[in-house]
């Protein structure tokens, strides 16, 4: 799967691409894309592994309802990647179980939309 194969060319004029990282690997994204969208376009479906059965999960509902697309974004766990717009330099990581404790005095990036 190439990095652009899931992007539909017709109907939009995409801006200049930028990159963020997922588990240390660079991922290309275009302005306006959500993290979940950019990751899917890059062929990456795994968002997290579950706490009890260690099962893989990825985006399911794409509208903020199911919470299965949660990842650790810039150190903050439980960020719904389907609602979070990708920004250059974001550090995105697979979430294991409930994820690391959130940094004190901060709120989730999706809350700062």
């Amino acid at each position: 799967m190439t990095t652009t194969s899931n992007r539909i060319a017709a109907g939009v004029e995409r801006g200049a691409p930028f990159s963020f990282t997922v588990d240390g690997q660079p991922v290309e994204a275009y302005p306006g894309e959500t993290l979940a969208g950019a990751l899917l376009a890059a062929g990456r479906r795994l968002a997290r592994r579950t706490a009890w059965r260690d099962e893989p999960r990825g985006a399911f509902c794409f509208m903020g309802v199911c919470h299965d697309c949660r990842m650790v974004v810039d150190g903050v766990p439980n960020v719904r990647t389907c609602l979070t717009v990708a920004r250059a330099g974001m550090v995105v990581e697979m979430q294991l179980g409930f994820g690391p404790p959130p940094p004190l005095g901060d709120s989730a990036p999706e809350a700062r939309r």
Partner: protein
Amino acid sequence: MRTGEVVVVGAGPAGITAAVEASRAGARVLLIDEGPAVGGQIYRQVATELRPGSGAGGNGYAADSAPLFASLAASGVEVWSDTEVWGIFPDRVLAIHRGGRSMRLQAGGLVLATGAYDRPVAFPGWTLPGVVTAGGTTALIKSQRIIPGRRVLLAGTGPLLLAAAAALVRGGAEIAGIAIAASRTAFLGLLRRPAALGKAIDVLATLKRAGVPMWNGHGIVRVEGREGVERAVVAQWDAAWRPVPGTERVIDVDTVVVGYGLMASSELAQLAGCDVTYHAGQGGWVPVTAPDRFMATSVPGVFVAGDGAGVAGAEAGKLQGELAGLGAARHAGKLTDGDAAARAKAPLRDLGKMASFRRALERMHAPEPGLFELAEDDTIVCRCEEVTAGEVRQAVGDGARLVTEVRAATRCGMGLCQGRLCIPTVAGLIERYAGTLTTSVGRLTARPPVRPLPVTALADEA
């Protein structure tokens, strides 16, 4: 606390129409939506930074949505996007989350147009990455212009499933097949409305041109793969949606799109204290209301419209929105009884004309018992808390007959999605294991916050 003459929650077709109608009646109107732009799910817009080009872009509903967006822009309605309502308290006080802060808002007349989400169906493998919902697929394509996979199987029922398939074809995906639970004749009832007929012909022509195999009277059995979808198994289904032995076929795909109808998002109406009733074909628990009372609920000043008031599609939603907008403006003292009744005549008449279309839609969306027999003992029912069908069976065997009793015994429904993705299945499983009708197993009590809320937002409450 800020006050508004009329507040509308949800900026899909029903909510936008309600807001514009109330504004035309002379009310100051605030329209609140959790998305980044108005449109809701069906009229979801391309993300603004992706700059929709001319031609093939847009949401696929441009002819319907453009006039609506234009009328909203021309109205005096104030729009708050990226804003979640997390609670409703007595006297129509809304608790909202906006820009990282929580605040309260008092509404003179309140319209809830909260929409719907895809019915969750628990079958073996439904939690694998690569299994996605039909509504989610269309949302991703409309707003991001990204398809969820390259080789796709679709399974479900109703017009949304076929619309998702057509959008995937136009987006360049290869469709391995569509397993449609409803029989071919069930779709004929939908064609009594000319507007629906035009869209159906367009969708079917797209699928036919692409040579997409459509299997009527078929359904999903399971999905297999290690770290994600590798193959799906479909089978012929009988009238009760039970697989016919010996008809299974295995299909290699990377993505499975599931769409067995929609569930009404009625949590906010429930939080507001509105009486609800169970309607399988309209998406479960829906507020008790009547079009000839301006879509009023049992709570004075609270009106509902659109799929959140019972799934009926965008066209019915707009007509209900007109009525609810009039009702809310009237409640806020902006319309006389006579004026409101006169303006309600046309939408009421048009809604009446849609009755047979709506009945056909409801028949198609009401799940048959086989849908709740796909889950095996080790199939996950609650995606958040990882509760299996076997654990639910055990709880029912121990005497649980209400969804709240199953929740207490298993943690099913206690996770971040607040039961939206498991309770419809739990209700079906109680009927499967104990024979208790879905209408008698109760529901979870909606409690604030109905959306996840950082504690820091509460600390800063404005």
